[in-house]
């Protein structure tokens, strides 16, 4: 590489990095800066004093935040495990060659391509307490037994989880499918010659080889699920009884509704740190292995 080349590469990088710095980098810095200050937009008289880690300390003591954290963890744990399971099944299915495979693949992709605003409205309609399809499927015309899914704390969170699983299982399926496709057919053929049944073939060939892909899917999904916002914002805005008040929604309410900019930023920074730690674990466990494989 000549010095001229090096200059050229740096020059090529500049526009992208500039846009990123302006619209993401600087805002992130500002958000982190705010999280160390007390900034209440409705009360400019109080100025914006530096408060050190007070906002984070407050966050640890805030029972609402703890509750939100718990809900978010439940949301992340259930959605990711179901999405991986369903994603794996779909991926195994699509990996077969059969007529109409393309059409099936397209069907599976559709939920993922639908705007979250639309799918959230759709699930509100399906979960309706008076004329929702889900009640009809379970209880038929006996409307007296219909469950008001979004009106009860336990079921409201479940409804949110179901909506998320529906929307993003296909994404998990795609990532897993990618792992499946790199497994050479010869392995299966050899196994079959040796007389291995389909279950054994799955356990001894497929499973070990798609584990990295599963982990990738798991981490992509965990990172996204931790930051869930749109879905809850449209479907329930947090209620009833804070049952769907996921961390990002709580942060939004603190910042944009109540105007606690510092405290709200602290919530976001905390979510970021959690996600970052998860991402580092992800890179440690699989990244190294994959990078070696590539090199």
């Amino acid at each position, binding site marked *: 590489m000549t010095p001229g080349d090096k200059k050229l590469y740096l020059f090529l990088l500049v526009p992208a990095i500039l846009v990123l710095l302006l619209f993401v980098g600087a805002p992130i810095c500002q958000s982190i800066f705010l999280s160390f200050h007390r900034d209440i937009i*409705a*009360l400019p008289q109080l100025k914006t004093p530096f408060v050190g880690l007070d906002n984070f300390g407050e966050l640890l003591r805030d029972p609402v935040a703890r509750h939100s954290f718990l809900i978010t963890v439940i949301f992340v744990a259930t959605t990711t495990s179901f999405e991986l399971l369903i994603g794996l099944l779909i991926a195994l299915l699509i990996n077969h060659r059969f007529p109409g495979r393309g059409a099936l693949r397209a069907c599976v992709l559709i939920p993922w391509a639908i705007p979250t605003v639309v799918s959230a409205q759709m699930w509100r309609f399906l979960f309706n307490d008076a004329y929702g399809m889900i009640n009809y499927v379970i209880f038929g015309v006996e409307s007296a037994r219909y469950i008001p899914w979004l009106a009860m704390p336990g079921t409201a969170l479940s409804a949110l989880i179901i909506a998320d699983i529906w929307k993003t299982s296909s994404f998990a399926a795609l990532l897993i499918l990618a792992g499946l496709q790199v497994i050479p057919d010869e392995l299966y053929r050899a196994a079959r010659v040796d007389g291995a049944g389909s279950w054994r073939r799955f356990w001894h060939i497929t499973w070990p080889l798609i584990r990295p892909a599963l982990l990738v899917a798991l981490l992509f999904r965990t990172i996204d699920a931790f930051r869930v916002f749109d879905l809850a914002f449209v479907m329930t805005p947090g*209620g009833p009884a804070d049952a769907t008040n996921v961390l990002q929604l709580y942060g939004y309410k603190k910042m*944009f509704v109540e105007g606690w900019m510092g405290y709200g930023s602290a919530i976001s920074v905390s979510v970021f740190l959690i996600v970052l730690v998860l991402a580092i674990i992800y890179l440690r466990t699989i990244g190294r292995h994959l990078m070696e494989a590539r090199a």
Partner: protein
Amino acid sequence: MRTSIKSRIILILGLFYFMTGVVFAGEPTDIVFLTWKTSQPKVWANLIEEFQRENPGIRVKLQVAPHSSTQYHAIVTQRLKNKDASVDVFFMDVIWPPEFANAGWLLDLTPRFKEQQRAKFLPGPIAANTYRGKIYGVPCYLAAGLFYYRSDLLRKYGFEPPRTWDEMLSQGYEILKGENDPALSIYSAQFKQYEGLVCDMMEFIWSNGGTVIDPKANRSTLAEPPAVDAVSFVRDRIIGKASPRGALNYEEPESLELFIQGKAVFHRNWPYAWSIANNPKRSRIAGKTGVGTLPAFPGHAPASALGGWQFGINRWSRHYDEAWRFVQFMTSHQSQRTLALKAGLAPTRRSVYQDLEVRKKMPHLKAFLPAFEKARPRPLSPVYQMISQELQRFFSRAIAGRKSNIPALAGVASKKIQKLLELGAMVQR
């Protein structure tokens, strides 16, 4: 040579004159009006057009945000706190003026909106727009919690509209027994965790002689017996009994839907519901409804929460005068009359209630007037949004759990609200 210089000067002057003339006549001032998406965009558009016809020098540009008060609030505050001069006039919920005025976001209208002008409006909305002796907004239309009922069913069973909540329940159960319709429920109201819940629950508390905040002492009274008892009543007797449990997810549209489908005997809503409930194209119970004041607990007076929307002028606007002319026009007798007749909105000017056509076409408005005069504001505080979030959390937790420990929850919420009140008081000193 000389003449040509002279003529040139004249020409230039003439051109200059011509150009400034163009500037003055052809380039009207734009003012931006930020509001939410209405259900009758035509009515509003026509009013704005009429204003522009009367004021050829001013052009109004409309910007729209979601109708949800909370989401709209987020957008307005985002602009105001950043001293955004690109908005001149905006629509304000009745709970915002103290917050906005304290933050210095609103133009002080005291010199323009004179005392004798204010006297022509109903007192509730004027009080809501007043902060520390100065007025910051002009009320456009108002609302108050009203009690709708099925007049046909009440007549059939020989009932007068209920005066107490218990009476409502006993009448309701009798009607339910007689009608034997599993889809019918007694009461439909708004119990979702959102701003509307605060209104509905405060009405229960007020009608039990309680309060949420004692404004004189700046003290939270949420954990005191009248409030706790009223909240317990809602949990034990209303949710899942008189109202379907689904009401815990109802805002105004869903609860109104239940009523106009003929699936509820009684219904709490704002004035706008009257014309929809009586519109045969949308309602199955058109002509079979009555409206009045909400019930109360025995020995106490009924109460309804004050709602409604006002115009505020952005402190950072560069067009105070044009903006003020627009606000004056939109809140004039004539405009309020149009909004009442065409959009069913309740006027804030007394004179509109006396208007012949309004009285003829909307006789119910006159009947609402007592409720409007007595409507009670939600806490007037610069930190109202924070208080409201705590109240929503408390009310929703209290009524959504079948076995919630209401006194304990009220204690926690009350302490938090007390802290917020002190925070609000700190800046007012």
